[in-house]
């Protein structure tokens, strides 16, 4: 006869809600803290001659600029997390961001449309582009990898055609989204893009947790067939997720051109790699069904910190490539092992739920 243990069940429940929301991310969080600690130590011993004052890495100025630096990648990473949870991938985000950026910049420069309509055009173009791609991916069995690769090249061409290879300077006509900040101290500034990033992360997190859409995202990524049988319109679902990704891309491009005051032809190039790397480092599986936006956030900050720290420590730029690559591998590795350890520590001898 199977024993019933309701007290234990409650305990399990608490332990497990924690586990689900936090556990997944705890190992990557651990890696982040480790990296921060290492960098601080390195700075202390190497750069600052063992004086704790003036540690540049943890200075409020540096923290605010790191946060600002990662916000574009971060917002793209939110969309990418959704796409990847669903089992897809989108290599076109970098170029699409560039395309929307130069499109908007050229409209702003032309100056004969009100700003709100330009924003609207940018957003809807991004969404339509992604929907188009989503249409192909969801209606056929083509791999999202190759389809989005094709679109990446198409957007690149669009960028060159719009810009004719030249940068489009927009001056200060579009400052709000990328340049305003709340100045807590003169050094510690919280930029609007950072606030937006955190806000979007929270919204998406809640949406994933408390809406059907979110719960279904995992299921579609986990087993498409079974999702279909459970009454999910898998095809349309996928379509909308790509569309949603377009929304995030458009936000990212606005921040980008606002922050750089320019729409540049090579602006988003290679961004997709950073984004995917951050998302994967943050624990989202390429095969879909596993991961969350907080993990992606930590992954984005981790990779952002690594670049920043290597700069601050004055590491030779050529070594930076080596170290950055090494740290990416190392952080997924540590994440994996600390994940393993945690699993084997969980309690034994619980046999029945009911």
């Amino acid at each position, binding site marked *: 006869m199977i024993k019933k243990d309701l007290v234990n069940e409650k305990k399990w429940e608490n332990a497990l809600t924690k586990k689900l929301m936090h556990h997944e991310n705890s190992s990557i969080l651990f890696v982040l803290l480790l990296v921060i600690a290492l960098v601080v130590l390195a700075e202390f011993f190497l750069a600052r001659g063992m004086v704790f004052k*003036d540690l*540049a*890495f943890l*200075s409020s*100025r*540096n923290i605010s*600029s790191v946060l*600002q*630096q990662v916000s*574009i990648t971060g917002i793209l990473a939110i969309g990418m997390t959704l796409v990847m949870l669903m089992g897809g991938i989108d290599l076109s985000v970098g170029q699409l961001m560039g395309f929307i950026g130069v499109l908007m910049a050229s409209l702003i420069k032309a100056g004969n449309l009100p700003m709100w309509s330009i924003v609207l055009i940018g957003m809807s173009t991004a969404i339509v582009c992604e929907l188009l791609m989503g249409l192909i991916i969801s209606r056929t069995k083509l791999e999202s990898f190759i389809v989005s690769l094709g679109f990446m090249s198409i957007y690149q061409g669009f*960028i*060159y055609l719009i*810009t*004719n*290879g*030249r*940068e489009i*300077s927009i*001056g*200060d006509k579009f400052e709000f989204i990328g*340049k305003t900040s709340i100045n807590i101290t003169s050094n510690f500034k919280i930029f609007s893009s950072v606030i937006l990033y955190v806000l979007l992360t929270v919204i998406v997190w809640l949406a994933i947790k408390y809406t059907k859409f979110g719960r279904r995202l995992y299921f579609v990524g986990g087993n498409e067939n079974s999702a279909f049988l459970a009454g999910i319109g898998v095809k349309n679902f996928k379509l909308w997720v790509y569309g949603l990704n377009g929304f995030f891309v458009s936000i990212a491009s606005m921040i*980008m051109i606002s*922050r*750089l*005051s*320019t*729409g*540049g*032809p*090579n*602006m988003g*190039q*290679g961004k997709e790699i950073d984004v995917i790397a951050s998302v994967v480092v943050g624990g989202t599986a390429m095969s879909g069904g596993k991961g969350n936006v907080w993990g992606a956030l930590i992954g984005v900050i981790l990779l952002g910190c690594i*670049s*920043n720290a290597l*700069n*601050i420590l*004055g590491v*030779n*730029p*050529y070594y*930076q490539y080596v170290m950055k690559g090494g740290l990416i591998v190392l952080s997924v590795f540590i994440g994996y092992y600390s994940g393993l350890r945690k699993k084997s520590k969980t309690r034994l001898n619980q046999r029945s739920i009911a």
Partner: protein
Amino acid sequence: PAPVTTSDGTDTTVLTPGTNADTAVDLKNKKLAFINAGPDDYYAAFGNAFTAVAKSYGMNVAELNSAYSAEKELANVQDMISAGVDAIAVISANTAGSSAAIAAANSAGVPIFYVGGKPELQAGSEIQGHVTDSFVMMGYMAGQWVSEKYPQAKCVTIPGQLGQRMAEGEVVGFAMALDEAGMTPLKVLASGEWQKEKTVPIMEALIDSGEKFDVVFAANDETAFGVIQVLKERDIPIKQYPDDGKDGIVVVSNNGKDSGWDAMKDGGLAISVPNPPSLSADLCVQQIVKYFSKEPYKKQIQITPSIILDAKNTDKGISWVLDTYMKQRANNVFEWNLSYYEESYDKNMVKYEKFDKAVDDYMAKH
């Protein structure tokens, strides 16, 4: 001297008043950041020269690399401000984002210098020094040379990385020169991305397509090497001098780097318009030194190639290789003193402005 104002409205001369030029400034503890645009030959030469020259003044340099990304460049500037360096020098592949970087440096009180393309300056922000070059002008010089020597020629170009200021600029300059001379318009091929590897298939396809052409304008020496290799493999004669009496394809390029000299001497490359990165970097360091020692200097200078290199004058080329460069500098093979370039900039300023205007007009037309 009275402040001179350029077309973009920035004040280009600074005289720091009230300082005693004799006060020895301690350059030893100065830490500079050099933010390089990307990892390749051209930029490596910048970085090497900058570091070496700065070291010769006793300063320390941390070099960073933006991998051609405007966003990364801005992040690098921010990081260096956080790291507390004494001055930042930036060379950018594009000028996007420079206004944000300058604003950040200004607000942190860190002097910032630019080498290469013109940064965007917004009202109220300032940079402490700027050594510009003009790829449009270099392309124009190459184009002019072609239009003088081969007025009937049909020209094609293999541009550098699309979307980069320099790549697009030199094509514009070259096309403009042809246009002015009333020659057949320039045909732009696919991008060789500054590399031999990417150039070879483009050149092969060009030849196979049966397209007639007489002159190839290669974006840089490396591209030219690819072009020459294919021509040689296909046994297509190469013409090096207008007066050598042979028929063949003329290959011209920009760079004038050391291996380009060999290519000219070996009888492949006809001319190369030199833009030695080492010199620009050198001048930038000199500006920084002046800034620290509070000596007067011109905030903005533009350098343009004084000669076009061909097989006969390669000895006048300024080296891209650090050791050779430092040797040439020590032996005064070329002018390296900042004041020389300040003067020549003064002299040529009107010409430059006219040229810039001509470019604007040309671009508006096309």
